[in-house]
């Protein structure tokens, strides 16, 4: 996966727009003050719930804070939580998948797969809600862990499938007969062959996590103030829907754009890196139905919510 493969993409209008959007989000997350002169947390106490004007492009909220500024600062929260959750989930899922695949067929594998099945069955939001409620939403770590849990299963299955497939390959048997340890062989072969798929999956998982974080915040169990959160802005704005719809609705636009960027990027990456991804992904999601997989479509719905 070299960078050179991306250059032709950037030349196309949609690819270029996507790159620009990603750049914008990154800058908004790192240096939001570049885009807005206002302070996101200072309470001005005046001009409460002002309609959008040139001074306040998206209006002000009930405490007089500029809505656009809060949305911009919210980018940081969203991306931080999103990337952390995906990273955590990737690490945990890969570790479990590697272990299960390496000891494939043994009791450990069975046990781990039952655990993975359990994680897979519970709807992600339900699981996240329970975990956050228990651990306490005041700690940002509990939100991250709660969101990460929903994706561990997918990663674990993916990696495990790859490990199992590779284990049977001839070069592995050959290497073993030459005295190499299976572990080192897998490490040398599994990860390089999997990382394309993992990258694609991760980008798509990011969009899902962003939606999940917004949902948790909307239910009141997301990241707590004063850290700005789009989902919480929606929740707080909901009661002003009749009198000040811009406060209620504009954070949703931000969520939408962020998720859109992630999904587009994910699709692009998948087409670029791993056109076969969907087939093998479907194959190990339904391990008992290898034959059905052959009639399965090449595309899978990108974002899981």
């Amino acid at each position, binding site marked *: 996966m070299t960078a050179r493969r991306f250059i032709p993409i950037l030349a196309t209008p949609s690819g270029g727009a996507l790159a620009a959007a990603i750049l914008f989000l990154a800058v908004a997350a790192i240096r939001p003050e570049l885009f807005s002169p206002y302070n996101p947390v200072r309470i001005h106490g005046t001009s409460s719930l002002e309609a959008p004007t040139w001074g306040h492009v998206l209006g002000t909220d009930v405490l007089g804070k500029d809505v656009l500024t809060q949305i911009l600062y919210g980018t940081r929260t969203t991306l931080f939580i999103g990337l952390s959750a995906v990273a955590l989930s990737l690490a945990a899922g890969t570790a479990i998948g590697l272990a299960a695949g390496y000891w494939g067929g043994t009791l450990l594998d069975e046990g781990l797969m*039952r655990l993975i099945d359990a994680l897979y069955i519970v709807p992600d939001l339900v699981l996240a809600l329970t975990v956050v409620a228990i651990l306490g939403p005041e700690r940002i770590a509990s939100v991250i862990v709660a969101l990460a849990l929903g994706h561990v299963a997918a990663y674990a299955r993916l990696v495990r499938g790859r490990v199992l497939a590779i284990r049977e390959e001839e070069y592995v048997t050959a290497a073993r007969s030459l005295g190499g340890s299976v572990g080192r062989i897998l490490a040398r072969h599994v990860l390089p062959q999997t990382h394309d798929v993992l990258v694609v999956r991760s980008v798509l998982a990011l969009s899902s996590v962003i939606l999940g974080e917004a949902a948790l915040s909307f239910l009141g169990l997301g990241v707590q103030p004063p850290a700005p959160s789009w989902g919480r802005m929606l929740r707080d704005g909901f009661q002003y829907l009749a009198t000040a719809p811009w406060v209620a609705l504009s954070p949703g636009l931000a969520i939408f754009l962020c998720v859109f960027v992630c999904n587009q990027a994910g699709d692009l990456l998948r087409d670029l890196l791993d056109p076969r991804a969907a087939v093998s992904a479907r194959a190990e999601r339904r391990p008992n139905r290898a034959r059905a997989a052959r009639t399965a479509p090449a595309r899978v*719905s990108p*974002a899981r919510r």
Partner: protein
Amino acid sequence: MWRYVLRRMLVLIPTVALVTFGIFFLMRTAVGGDPTLYLMGHEATLQQAAQARTRLGLDRPIIVQYAEWLRRLGSLDLGRSFEYPMDVGPALAGRLPATLELTLMATVLALLVAVPAGVFTAVGRHTPLGRAMSAATMAGICVPNFWLGMLLIYVFGVKLGWLANSAYVPLPENWRQNLGSMALPAVSLAAYYAASWTRYLNTALLVALQHDYVRVAQAKGLADRTVVLKHALRNAIIPMVTAVGQSVPYMLAGAVIVEAVFSLPGLGRLLSDAIQSRDYPIVQGAVLLVTAAVVASSLAVDVAYGVLDPRIRYD
């Protein structure tokens, strides 16, 4: 085939048990887990809270409590809610219709949109309208359902004053008001799946269109559209069934939020409220119900496969 189903169930039951135990354990051990002070509000005293804990059996070891729950489960007794004066079973049953109706309506709506749209975007993929629709589906999967719900409330409730947010009434009571109150929530929930399933079907059709028998049909001179409708579609049904079946857990999760937005008295809202007020018996029962529903839908998909695709044989 039934032996296959049975075998699968035998594997899935321990998984469900694992889930229930996990939630059970999690709720009772975590520091933020004690429900008694929440229940008593501001008349609470530490002494009364301790007495309440004993009364609710929360001071026994967790294994004992779980064993007790399992035992009662055997006689189909899910226990009694901590917060509400109801047994868990009837409480869940009371809320089930709203959620069931919501998810069914959303599924039907999504399919009504996805099937024609999926066909159209596949067949007309080179037309501007087809391309526009593809772009729309991409947008559709990115829209958060609670935001859509708020938008719909704003447009139809605040601005237009139609469908003025009728309060939910059960279906047998007043079907007009019931459907009126369910329309916006169902649309909010369905939107994502309409877009997602359209894309799924689109891809399935495109793949099917590349198969040899299709080329033969095309060589014979049949129009793309006929080919699609007669041959490809039938073969694309199977992955669609998968897609719908796999969406069940996510749709249930979506129902939690949509019910919160529209204040619908459904299972999702009950679960979310119960989690926050540490009403363990309700959470246990609802999680059990939800995971059972997911398992059941997964098995239903398998059975549907067996029925729809003669090539699939379970042995």
